[in-house]
């Protein structure tokens, strides 16, 4: 079994996001970037499945600018066998990414495609689902547990009501939740070894995919500042304020 894992480079989750003054986006210059956290879970799970002898190869793929390759390099340092970097500059929407991934799947013929359930930058939560539709493969989203059983997967999903366990046929798409596992650390010797693992570079135009945005972004703004709270003297005043000022009762 071969597993393809898609990883995305995003602003590190510890960084306080700042909106550009001209409203065209957020500041990314000199900002610490990292792998999208649930993508780390996706890589970890794929490597675990391989270590359990149930997969033969883990291939990490990313789509993005030159520096996006760092996320593939990190995936290689925690156990992926080789990498693919599809180079695209500029804004990338989930549809473009899933079309590119579709081409990579055609080329690589994996049995499973893993990725994070959503990216923490645009929070779209669409790429896995769109890829599933494009490939006409079954999908298991928000996975918090994955059991590989011959040609089937038993996947536990994090849903609003609790946990849902489903069985799907392979080939399949799985999008991973943060509860799936605890990603391992990249050890220093493994980082060294990862520098020697191959990363294939492909440009989006070679794949024949049109990546031009389908959405027009009007403006990026900071959420309004929360006003400071006030103290009320008694219940009557509270009710009066809820009624007349907040207008919620």
């Amino acid at each position, binding site marked *: 079994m071969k597993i393809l894992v898609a990883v995305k480079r995003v602003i*590190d989750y510890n960084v*306080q996001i700042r909106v550009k003054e001209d409203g065209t986006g957020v500041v990314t*210059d*000199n900002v*610490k970037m990292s792998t999208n956290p649930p993508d780390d879970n996706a890589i970890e799970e794929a490597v675990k499945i391989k270590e359990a002898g149930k997969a033969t190869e883990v291939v990490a793929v990313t789509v993005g600018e030159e520096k996006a390759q760092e996320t593939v390099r990190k995936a290689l340092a925690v156990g992926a066998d080789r990498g693919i970097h599809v180079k695209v500059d500029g804004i990338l929407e989930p549809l473009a990414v899933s079309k590119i991934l579709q081409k990579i799947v055609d080329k690589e013929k994996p049995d499973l495609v893993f990725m994070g359930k959503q990216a923490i930058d645009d929070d779209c939560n669409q790429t896995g689902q769109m890829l599933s539709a494009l490939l006409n493969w079954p999908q298991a989203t928000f996975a918090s547990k994955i059991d590989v059983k011959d040609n089937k997967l038993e996947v536990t999903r994090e849903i609003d009501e609790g946990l849902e366990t489903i069985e799907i046929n392979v080939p399949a798409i799985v999008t991973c939740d943060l509860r799936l596992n*605890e990603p*391992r650390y990249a*050890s220093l*010797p493994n980082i060294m070894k990862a520098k020697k693992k191959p990363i294939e570079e492909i440009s989006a135009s070679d794949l024949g995919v049109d990546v031009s945005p389908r959405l027009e972004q009007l403006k990026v703004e900071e959420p309004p500042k929360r006003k400071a709270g006030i103290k009320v003297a008694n219940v009557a005043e509270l009710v009066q304020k809820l009624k007349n000022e907040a207008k919620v009762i």
Partner: protein
Amino acid sequence: MSRESMEYDVVIIGGGPSGLSTAIKLKQIDPNLNVCLLEKGSEIGAHILSGNVFETRALDELLPNWRELNSPIKTKVTKEKFLFLGKTKSLSWPTWLLPAVQQNHKNYIISLANLCRWLAEQAENLGVEIFPGFPASEVLYNEDGSVKGVATQDMGIDKDGNKKDSFEPGIELLGKVTVFAEGCRGHLGKQLIEKFELNKGKDPQQYGIGFKEIWEIEDKNHEEGLVMHTAGWPLDNNTYGGSFMYHAENKQVFLGYVIGLDYKNPHLSPYDEFQRFKTHPTIKKIIEGGKRISYGARALIEGGFQSLPKMFMPGALLVGCDAGTLNMPKIKGSHTAMKSGIIAAETINEHLKENKDLSIYENKFKNSWLYKELYEARNVKPSFSWGLILGIIFTGIDQILFRGKLPFTLKHKHADHETLKPANQMPKIDYPKYDNVITFDKTSSVYLTGTNHADNQPVHLKLKDPDLPINYTLEKFDEPAQRYCPAGVYEVQKENDVNKFVINSQNCIHCKTCDIKEPSQNITWVTPEGSGGPRYGNM
């Protein structure tokens, strides 16, 4: 459990200007040398904080073609101001009356973090292996007592010291020479200085705490290239310190405050002095209408020549502010740190190729402009122990009339942890409330640093005696850790009428002030899990 080990010709600890310069120079001299560099921050630059007005002298020597290499050194200093602040007034000091060391017209306003990121690129292009996110936590020694290398921190230990599932043991990095470039109060450098008695016969080291905020200000208040320093208010005549305000590119100003850690009043809160300073009419009118986008703090070394330890020992060298090469009257340490790294690389090369002893570092250092700079600057900082006014008068005579060549050397008398007076003998200070426009509380400030430490790991701020803060320091000094820590790590909380000393180590921004100022030296800063700490952008 035995650890894996990797061998290099040279292992460098710390990705600041001194460590990176050492690495670059080594590879320039001999591309075949195997050089690796460890950095505890999540990336190069993540733990760097500096003013910074940059003198290019050392960089001109290291990378003479830096102007062609797309370096982040762009904003030339175009104008200078020096102000004495009274409570509401300010008095401008004519720049022609400033000592030559404080004149900046050939210098640049830069972000040192960005300079380090760029230096790291140059180093990697030369083949240096750089490993961010790996703190060196332990010095390794050969049987003959010489330094053998370092071990990196174990990863995946829980708060009680047990191994988690994700446990990853540290690695031993062995070097023919190990270079310690951790910056001010490096925790391994501190151990080495003690073990090899490198500071024997030297004055006690002197430190300061430096704060920095980056503000995006209104166009009308911004004057790219302007460098402004102040002395005076809000500090009293007996407390050493002052501010900087550098107008950088993109409508940003780098605003900061430095306070000598030899202050005497335990009620003093360096953080609040900085916040209060911003409310001075002269300062407020510049930043009003702007937005604070970054905050950070870091201890810096001020002892200079008299306190500089021996920088070599068997198998290892100290460079930059791990030793203490900052030039205090010049308010600059980057070019001196870089120069010390360049000299270290030359030393190591001769040591490896010609079997010369590492002690040749001292002679090379003495014959360099770096030594001359530090020697001539040596009397400025100690003269301020007489107070601001006498300090300025003496500095005028020493620096302008004699250019640092007076035939005597003033001494630093006390280590900074010895200077606090008992709380009941010193006046309490009533700091104004934060207005959330110009001044802010510590919590919202720390939020801007992007600081995080993986939870469920051992506390990296170790107490030698866990009861001392409550049993002694609270009573005698009103537990000053609550105030000298710029990140609100230390709190005294009352639980059922019993005082409890709380360490919020996840807030720690790695400034090392507690390790320096704690009056009984009861707090020891050790390395937390890799990548922990602040994620500074262009500090």
